[in-house]
């Protein structure tokens, strides 16, 4: 067994990373991949819709004392359609560094050869990207971000965060880290001209938009049942959108070192299309 393919999903908190990741994992499993989704956010709600609710985390096990292979195996859940899930957890609020905590959890998975032992072919890391200080860059520095997809929408503050993540990737790449961006995923909020806004920002940064995901009430409906759309509404258009995303991610092997732009460049793009809306109506 070779190394699994490793893809990291980054984005601002609340943007829909975990929902996108979980639906992507579910869709990838139907394409024959053995997927493990690793939640890398102290909130530990990444795998909830795949594995039926909040789960105990690797770092909480670390806190409680001895960590062994058996303990780690006990934290890995097999969820929908054989998708595996585990949560890194985070440090206690007010102490420690969240990014380093996440990296510790990832190192523990490697130490026990978890990916090989479970036959994982596709590892998906769902990473919080609100604050890109040195801490949150730790997993990037350690080779967990060879293929980064950044989840965004057309809002300016979200795009600013995308830009910060892009700046981190570029800087770490220049320092010799093996990290690059594979593309943006536009998880749309329903803003006018949102596809064009995100396309234009992506073009300036020199990265492709891999998918535009429309807003759908089915996402919430499925979430209330602690399920992904792919599981709860397999015949819906929205499930089709996630299956298309999965095929594109599987086929896309190109990565890019992005060119971060300034907020001064992002704001006019967003407001230009927003003011276009006024003329249209």
């Amino acid at each position, binding site marked *: 067994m070779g190394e699994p393919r490793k893809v990291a999903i980054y984005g601002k*908190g*609340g943007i829909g990373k975990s929902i996108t990741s979980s639906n992507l994992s579910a869709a990838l499993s139907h394409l024959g991949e053995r997927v493990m989704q690793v939640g890398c956010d*102290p*909130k*530990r*709600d990444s795998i909830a819709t795949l594995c039926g609710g*909040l789960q105990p985390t690797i770092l909480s096990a670390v806190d409680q004392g001895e960590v062994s292979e058996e303990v780690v195996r006990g934290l890995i859940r097999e969820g929908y359609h054989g998708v595996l899930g585990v949560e890194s957890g*985070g*440090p*206690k*609020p*007010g*102490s*420690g*560094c*969240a*990014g380093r*905590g996440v990296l510790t959890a990832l190192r523990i998975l490697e130490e026990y050869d978890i990916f090989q032992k479970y036959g994982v072919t596709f590892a998906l890391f769902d990473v*919080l990207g*609100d*604050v*890109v*200080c*040195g*801490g*949150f*860059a730790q997993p*990037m520095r350690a080779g967990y971000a060879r293929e980064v997809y950044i989840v965004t929408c057309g809002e300016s*503050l979200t795009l*600013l965060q995308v830009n*910060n*993540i892009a*700046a*981190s*990737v570029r*800087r*770490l790449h220049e320092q010799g880290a093996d990290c690059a961006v594979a593309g943006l995923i536009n998880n749309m909020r329903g803003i006018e001209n949102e596809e064009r806004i995100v396309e234009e920002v992506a073009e300036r940064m020199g990265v492709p938009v891999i998918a535009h995901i429309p807003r759908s009430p089915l996402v919430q409906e499925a979430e209330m049942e602690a399920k992904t759309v792919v599981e709860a509404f397999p015949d819906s258009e929205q499930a089709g959108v996630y299956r298309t995303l999965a095929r594109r991610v599987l086929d896309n092997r190109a990565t890019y070192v992005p060119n971060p732009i300034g907020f001064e460049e992002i704001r006019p793009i967003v407001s230009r299309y927003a003011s276009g809306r006024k003329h249209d109506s």
Partner: protein
Amino acid sequence: MTQQARQIALYGKGGIGKSTIASNLSVALADLGEKVFQIGCSPKIDSTAFLNGGEIVQPDILEQTRRKGDAKEHLMACIQRGYRGILCAETGGPEPAVGCAGYGVKLALDLLREHDLIAELGATFVIYDVIGDVVCGGFAQPMRSGYAREIYLVTSGEMLSLYSANNICGAVRAMSEEGADVQVGGIINNMRGVVQERELVEEFGRMVGAPVLAYIPRSPIVQEAEGEGGTVLEKRPDSPQAEVYRELARALLEARETVLPTPVELEEILALIRRHRAQ
């Protein structure tokens, strides 16, 4: 200076509206006779822009010290007098992917203290506007060092916002147990239009043991004023929204009791939201 300035910190999730509240509060406090100093403690450096005609207050302290050094005159150049003479400064932050943002903020605050600038400028009321997305040890630094003994949590009824507020409660509690002189003064509900948002945040307050000090309704007047580069108090002083901020300022001046909060588990917050959504 005979009297020490009162120092409070507003903590809350990024994008929740901390800076808007801080700026309007600063103006309202200035109108009540306080000499206010607002210090933005986020790498985004946009806390004080609406006290400064919509322009970002520059240079920020960390950038200035990187470029010119940390002599007093260089620090003084970072402090601007904005609307109503309110003192404004931004700590700045490290470049993305380098260093710890929280330690950067602390470094900037240490410099202000070292040169005794708060007393020298005659400030009577200092507001620290602090990002609270991730309460790792870094962002807790300003709490740990006794800059602000009173923490006010800005939140809405949204899950991520309550989650951050709860984390901040956890940080305050942990730090207080380690001997830091820090407590929570109350919660400011910056409403987003969530169903039953007043009740929801009120109940969250009871769960963590902190009072809700004010409800700030969502108002298009905020965007209008900020679109013109100013606070609601400057641009729309006769609006009902301006009165909301004045009430908050009065409530803050009267509120001197603080509490040690008790954080709850994420499951309890999720259950709280589900209960209110179902009603």
